[in-house]
């Protein structure tokens, strides 16, 4: 029973982080129909800035800088690369993001060299006792932070002008343009939000609690689990991103424990395939992701 509670908390903790990544991914897809394969490199970039500035700014300052930098990088990728090729179709834009991903990732991995720094100073490796059960603090904090951010996102998405514009554009680009919604602004903010969320996520991923591995190429591959999370939730569904993220987290935690660490990765994709066979547009999606 005790281990089961631990496993579930682990699963939700990881799931909360995947939900943040998947949400960013879905927001970009909704605004632009582009599948952003550079998401993992945004994660690495945020983490790298924490490593690079931690000594001068202190951890908290570096963490804030890292989050902001990931957001700004996402914005720059959109403004400088994607928006310039506005007429290109989403498929070639997705290919463009693969290029971006490789360049940023390789450069950061090169700079990190042999060091694999952990960057969750404020919560990493500080277990908490709850009623006789030992839990990772990283997972608990991740759940709280993700809950706050996701709630804030949904309030803005539902009630703010930004949210209305975003949903209008996602549904019908031409009609949105006809009523004066600035598609470039909607697109830019979508990328900014996704980058910020990626910057937050890395503070939990590159920890001993989450992965036992510091910032490295491994962080990038963990972040890739956001793809199956977003796809199984439904690429164009924000609620699906949350459910998908939590599902991936739980599957990962349970299969690591009951089967093996090596199996966990394929288990996530197996679940995704099963969902896609039953519901081609994902659990909550409206568009078939096979189209992408």
């Amino acid at each position, binding site marked *: 029973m005790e281990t089961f509670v631990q496993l579930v908390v682990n699963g939700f903790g990881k799931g909360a982080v995947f939900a943040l990544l998947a949400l960013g991914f879905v927001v970009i897809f909704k605004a632009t129909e582009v599948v952003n394969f550079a998401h993992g490199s945004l994660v690495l970039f945020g983490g790298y800035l924490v490593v690079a500035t931690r000594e001068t700014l202190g951890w908290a300052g570096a963490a804030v800088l890292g989050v902001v930098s990931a957001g700004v990088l996402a914005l720059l990728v959109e403004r400088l690369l994607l928006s310039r090729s506005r*007429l290109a179709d989403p498929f070639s834009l997705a290919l463009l993001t693969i290029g971006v991903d490789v360049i940023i990732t390789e450069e950061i991995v090169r700079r990190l060299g042999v060091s694999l720094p952990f960057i969750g100073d404020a919560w990493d490796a500080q277990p908490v006792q709850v009623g006789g059960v030992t839990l990772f603090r990283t997972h608990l904090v991740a759940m709280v932070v993700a809950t706050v951010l996701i709630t804030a996102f949904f309030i803005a998405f539902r009630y703010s*002008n930004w949210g*209305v*514009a975003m*949903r*209008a554009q996602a*549904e*019908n*680009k*031409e*009609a*949105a*343009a*006809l*009523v*004066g*919604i*600035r598609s470039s602004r909607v697109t830019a903010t979508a990328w900014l939000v996704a980058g910020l969320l990626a910057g937050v996520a890395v503070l939990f991923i590159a920890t001993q609690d989450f992965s036992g591995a510091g910032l490295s190429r491994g962080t990038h591959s963990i972040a890739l689990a956001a793809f199956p999370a977003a796809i199984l939730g439904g690429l164009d569904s924000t609620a699906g991103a949350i459910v998908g993220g939590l599902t991936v987290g739980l599957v990962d935690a349970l299969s690591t424990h009951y089967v093996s660490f090596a199996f966990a990765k394929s288990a996530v994709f197996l679940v995704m395939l099963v969902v896609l066979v039953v519901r081609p547009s994902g659990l909550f999606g409206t568009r078939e992701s096979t189209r992408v």
Partner: protein
Amino acid sequence: MLTVRNLHVRYGRSVAALHGIDLDVPDDGVLAVLGSNGAGKSTLLRTISGTLRLHRGTVSGGEVRYGERRIDRLDPAAIVGLGVVGVPEGRQIFARMSVDENLRAGGIGARSAEDRARARERVHELFPVLAERARQRAGLLSGGEQQMLAIGRALMAGPKLLLLDEPSLGLAPKIVERIAGIIREIHQQGTAVVLVEQNAVMALQVADQAVVLETGTVALAGSAAELSASEEVQRLYLGGHAESDTAAEEEAALARRQRVGARGLSRWTG
């Protein structure tokens, strides 16, 4: 005043959709644009509202001005900012959003919060049903209600010139009557209108001036009364023959003479 001069538009490299269109819409006018499928009516409206690019179309010649400003190179949001707002063919409401959110999206392009509040009041007065169904998903509205929502959404931006692309499409005759009445009312409230229609009967009732497009050119131009009486319009769009009183015949002859041969002759200056 909207002025279109010698407008040429193409899609991609091969499809030339408009070849030298000329027309004017004064600030208090209602211009009907008639023509059969594929004549270039929607292309004309897309060009005016700046959404041509979304269809991979380009202006290959001529110009569009609104007042003094040249608008054929502006983006759609800037054109809405100048007071030119379009309602697309097939309504294109945001089906998954509520009726109220559709109106809210329409108001994003409005200049100020007061403008927005005033616009919403106007929309609710014109279309009480949109107030009653405020929280309902827009996709669940009937066809007529969806058309009303599409028009209401455009009115939220406070247009001085409203572009309507086949608002009667797929609607029952009774509803078409109502839409016609509403367009008249919108016009009386001081908004100029470009009304694209295949339903010539309805359009000519509402409009004061009219043009007929044929394969990308203005084939006929004149007052709505002249065109209603013209044999050509009668035969092609009204399904009948002009009454044989002399006044109508004269008007018909006039419209015939304006038929494009030398393109400049048909320019109608309202």
